[in-house]
């Protein structure tokens, strides 16, 4: 099997401030990679760079495109990258407000992503949107309601439906369960796990919550001060961490 995504020696500085430095990894289809580390360790910076939202100072990011195989996304023309972001990639924001259009109905939020890739038949779009609301356990009767009338957990599930409707193969998530209370988190994680398995998605998930890693991730990367200090099989890194910083992270002292 070949990787679907390959990150090579990515470095990003904000002026003199280090964002992340020298990060490399491969991701395979169906694999869930967790990125953990303390606040300010460079997780979001890395995610934004590899998802094409920030330009790296150094390094390359390759994606296995449907038509041309492994292609550098950093060298890609902007329209092509935008197309990728609308089809094969998805990005789930921590705050659903950043990933949803709050003034558009729930159904419209899901339908919009389909229309962006050329869907035109209103009835089909509505039917698909309704189907996806069902899959993320949202009441389809609320298809015409705006997300601003939804709870945080419902908004997050809507954001996931909006992202998955185009059948992406790679999903980026930045703290998707942050800000939700525990029972809502558990439900969301359960849902995500099932979707990931059913659809064979490759996922990169940034989180500070090691329970999320244990539940969802196959592999984990531990970041400290912009660098990856340890990476490996998720349960191995959690149960037998090697690096001093990873040991600190998994020791109950820092566990939230």
């Amino acid at each position, binding site marked *: 099997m070949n990787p679907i995504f390959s990150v090579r020696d990515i470095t990003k500085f904000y002026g003199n401030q280090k964002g992340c430095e020298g990060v490399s990894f491969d991701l395979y289809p169906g694999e869930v990679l967790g990125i953990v580390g303390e606040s300010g360790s460079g997780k979001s910076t890395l995610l934004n760079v590899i998802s094409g939202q920030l330009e790296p100072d150094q390094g390359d990011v390759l994606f296995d495109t449907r038509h041309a195989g492994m292609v550098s996304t950093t060298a890609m023309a902007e329209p092509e990258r935008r197309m990728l972001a609308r089809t094969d990639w998805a990005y789930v924001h921590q705050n659903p407000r950043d990933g949803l259009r709050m003034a558009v109905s729930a159904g419209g939020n899901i339908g919009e992503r389909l229309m962006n890739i050329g869907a035109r038949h209103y009835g089909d779009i509505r039917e698909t949107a309704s189907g996806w609301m069902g899959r993320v356990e949202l009441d389809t009767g609320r298809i015409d309601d705006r997300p601003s009338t939804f709870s945080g957990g419902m908004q997050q599930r809507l954001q996931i439906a909006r992202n998955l409707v185009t059948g992406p193969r790679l999903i980026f998530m930045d703290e998707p369960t942050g800000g939700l209370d525990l029972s809502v988190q558990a439900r969301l994680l359960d849902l995500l796990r099932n979707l990931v398995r059913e659809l064979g998605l490759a996922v990169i998930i940034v989180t500070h919550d090691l329970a999320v890693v244990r539940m969802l991730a196959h592999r984990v990367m531990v970041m400290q001060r912009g660098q990856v200090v340890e990476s490996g*099989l998720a349960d191995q890194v959690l149960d037998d961490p090697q690096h001093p910083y990873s040991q600190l992270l998994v020791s109950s002292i820092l566990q939230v």
Partner: protein
Amino acid sequence: MFEISGLSKEFHLHHQQAARIKVLEGVNFSVLAGECVALTGESGSGKSTVIRLLYGNYLANQGAIRIGGLNVADAEPREILEMRRITLGYVSQFLRVLPRVPTLSVVAEPMMNAGAGEAESLDKARTLLTRLRIPEQLWSLSPLTFSGGEQQRVNIARGFIHDYPALLLDEPTASLDAVNRATVLDLITEAKGRGAAIIGIFHDQAARDEVCDRSIDISQFAAMA
């Protein structure tokens, strides 16, 4: 099926006065298909550590752990996950599951992951849960609120639902009453019968005598401090 050679393990606890806990050194043994081998040794000698090293849950410092062609000691994470999916089952001492997932699905999951159909997997899960005397009205609930013995039986059902060619068992009969213990020993005997290689830790001498072909005393591999 299992071929372990020169295996060593120490824990380097960076924050506890940078302690180095040397646990195992030069572990060598093999287990053939159809064989059941007991790991023995006093508490703290490293029996569970061996099991976890073999499962890839702990990282080996040195040596080779060959399980059906894969050297776990230097395998990629996805190779280890593939091995766990198809080849190597593990009944840990305590059940660890996700919230919200009903017992029936918890048990059926490894068989589905190994490629079997949903209906077939659910059928086998029902059969195993029945054999292990988990009352049917509990099947639709998450095992998280079950008693210790019930959780352990769910764990055992998970470990035996797919016909793994190799199995690791960490105290599978602890906290079980006599009838359930007998069922677990039957499951082990059946697995041996279909050619599975089994490594187990059994506190219970009688259980060991009943299902194990031989014992390996882990304290012979104690690391010199």
